[in-house]
């Protein structure tokens, strides 16, 4: 991908405005809510904090890309079954964080799940259903650990 956007532009703006991939959300815009989480070279990062010039040549995956994976299908089912989604605004970021966690640690404990999603704020669920969803996804998916 090439762009004429200035090198200090936020990756978040590039993804949403220029590429039209609006699954990635802006919440706080300062790295506290995780709604804009994406993968840069397979590592979970906040796209609101990344100047695009810093990541020239890197591989970016957004929630739209993750949706094409087996891992996403399992997470999708698990979030639905556990009632992990209410208003949904935090969910793309939450699912990215869940996928990052499960890729590194296919069988996380409750504490590890909470640590894994600690950078993501959800104002609806109180988190318990999200933690349940990640736990269920881990159970469902020996396959989940297949690297993105």
């Amino acid at each position: 991908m090439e762009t004429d956007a200035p090198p200090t532009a936020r990756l978040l703006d590039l993804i949403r405005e220029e590429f039209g991939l609006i699954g990635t959300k802006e919440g706080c815009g300062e790295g506290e809510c995780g709604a804009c989480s994406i993968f840069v070279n397979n590592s979970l990062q906040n796209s609101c904090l990344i100047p695009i010039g810093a990541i020239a040549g890197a591989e970016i995956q957004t929630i739209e890309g993750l949706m094409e994976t087996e891992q996403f299908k399992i997470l999708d089912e698990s979030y639905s079954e556990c009632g992990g989604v209410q208003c949904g605004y935090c969910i793309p970021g939450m699912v990215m964080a869940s996928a990052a966690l499960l890729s590194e640690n296919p069988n996380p404990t409750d504490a590890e799940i909470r640590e894994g999603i600690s950078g993501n704020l959800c104002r609806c669920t109180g988190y318990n259903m999200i933690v349940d969803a990640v736990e269920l996804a881990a159970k469902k998916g020996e396959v989940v650990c297949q690297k993105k």
Partner: protein
Amino acid sequence: MPEKITAYRFDYLDETLSQLNKEDCAIVAGGTDVMVLHKSGRGVPPKIPKPVVFIDHLSELKRVYQKDKDLHIGSCSTYGELLENPLIPIALKNAIKTIAAPAIRNRGTLGGNICNASPAGDTLPLLYVYNAKLLLRSVNGDRVVAISDFIQAPRRIGRNHNEILAEIILPSVLEEGSHVVFEKIGNRNADAIAKVSFAGYIRISNERIDDIRFAFGAVGPTMVRSIDIEKKLLGKPFPLSETDIDSIVADFDQIIRPIDDQRSTAVYRKTVALNLLRYFLNTSQYQPN
């Protein structure tokens, strides 16, 4: 027409240093502080007042190696990379795990945390008690300064505009028998800016204190550490007596001068800082780490 933005991203450190020698630039490592500091809203690039130099892709600034008893950490190592590096001491890793959250730990760098020089900088109390030294590199060569001399005031550091912080040096950090603690008090476990932070270092031999250091964050313009007060405890029998502990806490009561701000109050900060110090001094059984 949008304003023109100048930014550089060189393949090698040498070229980066040459550019810095020609022009005063804003150095951007992970960007997690800079992007927030100059944030200008949706769709608008942050307004960074100087030409920008990106450095966090430079592998020369990511090396971690041991030289004699010292540990050298490349300034652009992210927290996430340090957590995975077997050379990093467990105590430092435990502290890093309490910083931010996974996504920011994958981006934020140790060097960036130092050069941002926030009064609440997460790694700073710990780096102060490790007696960290900083290696600054420019086209003219290297120089090494103590972190306590480098950080001068909130967001003010002793970096010449042609220099880059290349390495953080932790002297004798790999020596056995010392114990390090790090405590951070914030509104949320993840992603919070500290209301108060504390780091303590102790080494005991033959039931006497061989070496002891402590530093507080977010209770003054820079980290608060007093080598004079620490010296009073050298050679004292361990565990410390009530009298010794009371006198040290009273000494710090005199020098800690926190402020009220949106995150906390001066009274709360001071109370908690002194409690953390008392708790550290009162510990009779340190787990070596």
